[in-house]
């Protein structure tokens, strides 16, 4: 069965568990398997059923926040991350006149393998 990894701030709602086994054929099914009325599910999805604004959801290396209907395999791991506030995907000028693309800094450092 697939797994869901959650940030440390949500561990207080799962008796400290940071990696939860979930069920379902799609990403949405997996989140729903937490329980339709569960507080943990509410922490991830708004009343409209979309991922909360300042969260990211990764499947492998892909940010899939708008694709909750993606199929999920039994070995897949979903990662919930808090958005890092601030920053920009725009390039900024350095003193030397070169530009730096900050968008790369927004991806998690470690590789997330499917």
């Amino acid at each position, binding site marked *: 069965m697939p797994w869901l990894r959650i940030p440390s701030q949500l561990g207080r709602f799962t008796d400290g568990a940071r990696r939860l086994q979930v069920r379902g054929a799609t990403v949405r099914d997996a989140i729903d398997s937490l329980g339709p*009325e569960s507080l943990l599910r509410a922490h991830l999805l708004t009343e409209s059923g979309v991922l909360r604004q300042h969260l990211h959801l990764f499947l492998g290396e892909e940010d899939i926040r708008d694709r909750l209907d993606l199929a999920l395999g039994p070995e897949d791991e979903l990662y919930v991350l808090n958005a890092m506030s601030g920053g920009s995907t725009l390039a900024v000028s350095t003193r030397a006149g070169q530009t730096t693309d900050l968008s790369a800094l927004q991806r998690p450092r470690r590789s997330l393998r499917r």
Partner: protein
Amino acid sequence: MTSRLLVGTEKGLFAFESADRADWRLVSPDPEHKGWQAYSLYAQPGGDVFVGLSNNFYAPHLQRSSDGGRSWRAIEHSPRFPEGSDRELKQVWSVRAAGDRLLSGVAHAALFESADGGESWEWNQGLEGHHTRPDWQPGLGGLCLHTIVPDWNNPDRLFVGISAVGVFRSDDGGRSWNLKNKGIRNLFRQEGQPEFIGAEDTCCVHKFVQDPADPDTLYQQNHSGVFRSTDAGDSWHPIEDGLPSKFGFPIVMLPGKPKTLFTVPQEESFSRTFPEGRFGVYRTRDGGLSWERTHSGLDEPNWGGVLRNSMVVDAGDPPAIYVGTSIGDIYTSLDEGDSWRRLPGRFPRIESLAAVIE
């Protein structure tokens, strides 16, 4: 006897303890619920303490404590709009016992009820279906149901306050509601318009309390002034002589002294700071006919303010008044405001207080 003061802030919940309510000790420098805003605190008489938590990342919800705030348990089935709703829960602003029910007010303005001690909640459709609902607009703090006052004399009568809509009264236990804003000052008065609004004109109530000696008397701090009603909200009349400003947020009354109230004026809506940087907790001993500034022990200059849920009175004898500012100071008075003592420490913006005497 141990007294505890729970302090809800922008970044979590702090707790103080005292044996005499004169000297206070911060229980821990680290807050409970670190990173969560604590907009509401409610110590149910003889029961649990509830805190309403929210933040930018996760779902607003309630937690409860059965040991005076020493440990907490998240309420799994907290107030929540149903799946598929076009409404979004932003914060939990109020919790209050009403007979054998618990009531909770949230943003975006709605009232929830619990018949099982707070473990599950139902959305009150009577208020939701009020015919003025499509016209409700938020104040700067959001569209929030921040004040719940169950009538101590009539179990079927309830009052709620919504910013920026006004005071509602129900006479049938919450099944139906009427807007009670007649006599509040017209904040957006245009030439030729009356100075005071009608019952169903909307306004921004900030806080109100009911007289424990006369159930038909209420006192309200509104965006546009301080008012009193002697007919259960059917009409309101200004009581502002002696106040430096009409604008402010909290209002509290001393138990056992129904004509003694306190409010904390701010300069005006734009700046929202103490008038001229002079922190004053204003007191009336005659039901609002006159007000005087109490400030002995309050630091100056002070360019903060006090939010609507950040002034409370405990059930002790004598009663202690606690006030927390938007810049993180906490003060207490055991002599009805004649003198104030500052509690140790400086905290994030203080959004709520609750006093527990064990």
